[in-house]
């Protein structure tokens, strides 16, 4: 017995096998955490570096580039990026407007109205919608929806045309902001739905039962218990959806007939263009200075989406912290 414990005495002080692997593993994990920070920094730095010629480069070359992009309409970067930002925000905001109520409705349907079996089928449908690649939505929007939705726009213009945003003449084919926004709405629908659904499903049963016990109808229960509980989650989900719509390229590229105006005529063609679609459209023919200009607009888009996403996450995080 004495001998055995002597042996262990030495072992206690000896380096444990696997000690080095332990340290290496920890180092690798730490490094991978840091890589996340570096990657985001790298995105900013590389974009800024490549966009630098358009920010601080030769004045004459800058003007020429911008003018060739815009057909002489804009003369400096701000004039160039302004309408693009406007178009991006307009299309994305409109998409959010359309998707928001539908998404909330579906989320409520799944969590509080549908029978169990139907709810799980619905969950699957929402996931399916999210899984379909954007290029397929673009294809569908460009070939199926554009002709299909034209009569509806014509109807709107005829009876609501006195409202500026619905002013005619309606473009045919309807490659307009309105149609694009509808497709984007379908694309961001699953994002908003799935997040809202998760939040609504977490409503404490106690609140719901308290409302029902007071004799509230189902809708009153939803309004009293579910919606207030999920408010910040829904806001955050909407902002994530907005972020996605702001950055969507293919659907816009394949549907929208572009223009560079500060215009809100949703049913007319060649009014607006988004940053992302503009990059994809002009990139193949751009020279080096032109690429700089496009990357500059990309940087602006990056900053906008970064801000939107950051705000969205801040809202959810606060909610969790409570």
């Amino acid at each position, binding site marked *: *017995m004495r001998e*055995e*414990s002597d042996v*262990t*005495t030495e*072992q*206690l*002080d*000896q*380096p*444990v*096998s*696997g*000690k080095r692997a332990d340290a290496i593993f920890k180092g690798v994990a730490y490094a991978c955490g840091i890589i996340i920070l570096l990657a985001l920094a790298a995105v900013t730095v590389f974009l800024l570096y490549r966009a630098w010629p358009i920010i601080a480069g030769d004045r004459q070359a800058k003007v020429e580039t911008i003018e060739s992009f815009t057909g002489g309409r804009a003369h400096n970067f701000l004039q160039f990026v302004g309408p693009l930002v406007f178009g991006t925000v307009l299309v994305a905001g409109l998409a959010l407007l359309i998707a928001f109520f539908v998404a909330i409705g579906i989320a409520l349907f799944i969590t509080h109205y549908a029978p169990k079996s139907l709810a799980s089928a619905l969950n699957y449908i929402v996931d399916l919608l999210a899984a379909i690649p954007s290029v397929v939505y673009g294809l569908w929007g460009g070939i199926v929806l554009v002709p299909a939705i034209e009569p509806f726009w014509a109807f709107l213009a005829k009876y609501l045309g006195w409202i500026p945003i619905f002013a005619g003449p309606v473009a045919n084919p309807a490659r307009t902001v309105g149609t694009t926004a509808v497709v984007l709405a379908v694309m961001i629908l699953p994002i908003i739905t799935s997040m809202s659904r998760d939040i609504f499903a977490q409503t404490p049963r106690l609140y719901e039962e308290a409302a029902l016990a007071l004799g509230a109808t189902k809708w009153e229960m939803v309004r009293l218990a579910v919606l207030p509980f999920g408010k910040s989650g829904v806001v955050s989900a909407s902002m994530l959806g907005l972020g996605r719509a702001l950055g969507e390229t293919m659907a816009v590229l394949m549907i929208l007939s572009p223009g560079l105006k500060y215009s809100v005529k949703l049913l007319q063609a060649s009014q607006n263009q988004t940053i992302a679609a503009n990059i994809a459209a002009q990139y193949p023919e751009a020279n080096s200075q032109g690429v700089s200009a496009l990357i500059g607009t990309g940087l602006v888009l990056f900053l906008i989406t970064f801000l939107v996403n950051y705000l969205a996450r801040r809202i959810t995080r606060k909610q969790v912290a409570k």
Partner: protein
Amino acid sequence: MGQRIDIEHLNIFYGDFKAVEDVNLNIQSNQVTAFIGPSGCGKSTVLRTLDRMHEIIPGAHITGKVLLEGRDLYGKRVDPVAVRRDVGMVFQRANPFPTMSIRENVLAGVRLNNRKISKSDADDLVEWALRGANLWNEVKDRLNKPGVGLSGGQQQRLCIARAVAVHPQVLLMDEPCSALDPISTLAVEDLINELKHDYTIVIVTHNMQQAARIADYTAFFNLKAVGKPGHLEYFADTTTMFNNPQNEEAERYISGRFG
């Protein structure tokens, strides 16, 4: 064979908070020592310092000494991982590895420490450990079935087999029976009685009858008030502790007047 543990002036901290104050205790080899006391008195915390498991919580640290057969467990060059190979632990809730079979669970300690082991050695070790845990006859026909498929009591004995398979000198048990039914509890208590021939056993229990049944020595921990550090109030052999305690607080606790 079991080894003795000597605790000298042990203070335990979580960050700035002092959880346990000035514990001095000698735990005899090949005996069962029970820790009892009200909730929050630090008995589990003290137990976890004996194999340095408390260090898993960030900011946890101690002052004082814990000596295993005279060797300082908190010596400068001592690795906690090495300590845990000499001091085994069984937890409140049975926690067999869900991805492993019964057999793999028993061998986990050896295999995870990267020691190569031949099949026949492994077979022998599995049988030895399971027999030691009074589980062999119940599971010998289904060694390759998942460990989580066993009943609660069997799972707990599987965890004991897993702990003894790495051949420690000391076995620490943190309320090993609190999640078990009475029959399973009895089986584990019988097992503890047999195990003390080979190991020093320290057991934390909420159940005073259990302490009286199985322990040779009993340590009573207490705390002055909520938020104050816990301390060792009274230490005695079990007979004295339960029949003629020389400490007022301990007597009150044992006779059920508080805690």
